[in-house]
């Protein structure tokens, strides 16, 4: 009750992922806590939300697999940067998203 706050942050797709998503960079607004579970918003929630949003991915049927694996983890070969820092230094999927964050997904898989 009461604590229903939204945070704003930027999500950007680079290195070929920009071809998968309709918008390569956008500001998102999401509640800090999940209404049902009361869980704090972490990166894994965002990743799942992005992957499940049929309006966001150009070809939901095929391109989803190029972003996440079956268990909704980011596909190996995609780097995640949180405010320009390797997410491996920030707790990866468990990172709690902060207001004003800039989250970048960059593919290493695409060619030249």
């Amino acid at each position, binding site marked *: 009750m009461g604590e229903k706050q939204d945070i704003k942050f930027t999500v950007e797709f680079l290195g070929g992922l920009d071809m998968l998503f309709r918008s390569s960079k956008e500001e998102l607004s999401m509640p800090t806590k999940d209404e049902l579970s009361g869980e704090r918003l972490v990166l894994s929630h965002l990743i799942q939300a992005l992957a499940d949003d049929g309006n966001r991915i150009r070809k939901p049927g095929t391109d989803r697999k190029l972003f996440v694996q079956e268990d909704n983890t980011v596909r*190996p070969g995609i*780097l995640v940067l949180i405010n*320009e820092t390797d997410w*491996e230094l920030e707790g990866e999927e468990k990172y709690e998203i902060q207001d004003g964050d800039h989250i970048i997904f*960059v593919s*290493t*898989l*695409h060619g*030249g």
Partner: protein
Amino acid sequence: MPPPPCALCTTNRAAIVRPKDHSKLCKSCFITVFETEIHHTITSNNLFHRGERIAIGASGGKDSTVLASVLKTLNERYDYGVELTLLSIDEGIKGYRDDSLETVKRNATQYSMPLTILGYAELYGWTMDQVVSQVGKKGNCTYCGVFRRQALDRGAARLGIQHVVTGHNADDVAETVLMNLLRADLPRLSRTTSIITSTPSTSDTTNIQRSKPLKYAYEKEIVLYAHHKGLDYFSTECIYSPEAFRGSARALIKNLERVRPSAILDIVRSGEDMAALCGPAPAHAADDGGGGCGRTESSDIGGAVAPGLEVEITSATVQKRGKKGGVAYVAPRQGKGQVMGKCEVCGYLSSQRVCKACVLLEGLRKGRARRGVEIEGGEGG
């Protein structure tokens, strides 16, 4: 939990975890270390010599863009005294190569390097778009792969340059090592792991040398270097082989990296050690397993369809080597006693009378003629 301080300067916040050793570095230390390691690769392998002219095989993608940027930086910083030029191959695929060539053109300005663009149309008389309209989308990677293998060499020869560097990285080499293991092709494994290969070119006098200065650089670090340096590169996928990068060897490498990041360099080193077991790598046309386009797919097909290109290792020599090493080994697929010569049609290095590219071109011409006849004869469908 905020990131720890950089392991090198101990003042800035770490921003990168290096896959090879898990060390945590800040942006500026990472950039310095990355460049220094490439410098070390270049000097310890004596890749360049003063006064040498070097063509950078440039696609506009991350690897070749980072290669061009780093080589320019190092050439100035350490005074290699080499002359760098960009060489791009235009396969003639509308909607694919056009945009990346625009990137290469910007790179040429950004790095103040001359740029030469050479097209399949000019070299072979066929663009890939025309090849595909003739042979269909299936199997067209074979043509592209065979044509590309010669294209950089021919381009360099035209420029009077004897050394081509390519952006093949550690992930590419590891992938090729695995592919060759899966194919039981030790001779090819030996060639693909060596940092320098030599390709006899179209003329008698010139030998084109190929080298891979980024051979020990992780793809992850190449992308992060490009990102943190703000380099202008273009990511794309070939419209004729859009799912090439889903190749299973590639996926395996990336999965291994996630579990144990050092695995990639370990595979590269294992490849080198296995290569050492089968003797010195012969001077030969390089097989560019990775990089660029439909990687796994094209090298797969190339391996099966174009054995003619890797024949100077005769079964006789391989068996001799095998005996020396005490290992019974039969060379796969190679014909008996083939001798390296020149293609009767184009003069390029070939074990056969006519090189693979010319065989393919002849097939295309016949196909075109046949199709013409069919149309005249009114045979529909």
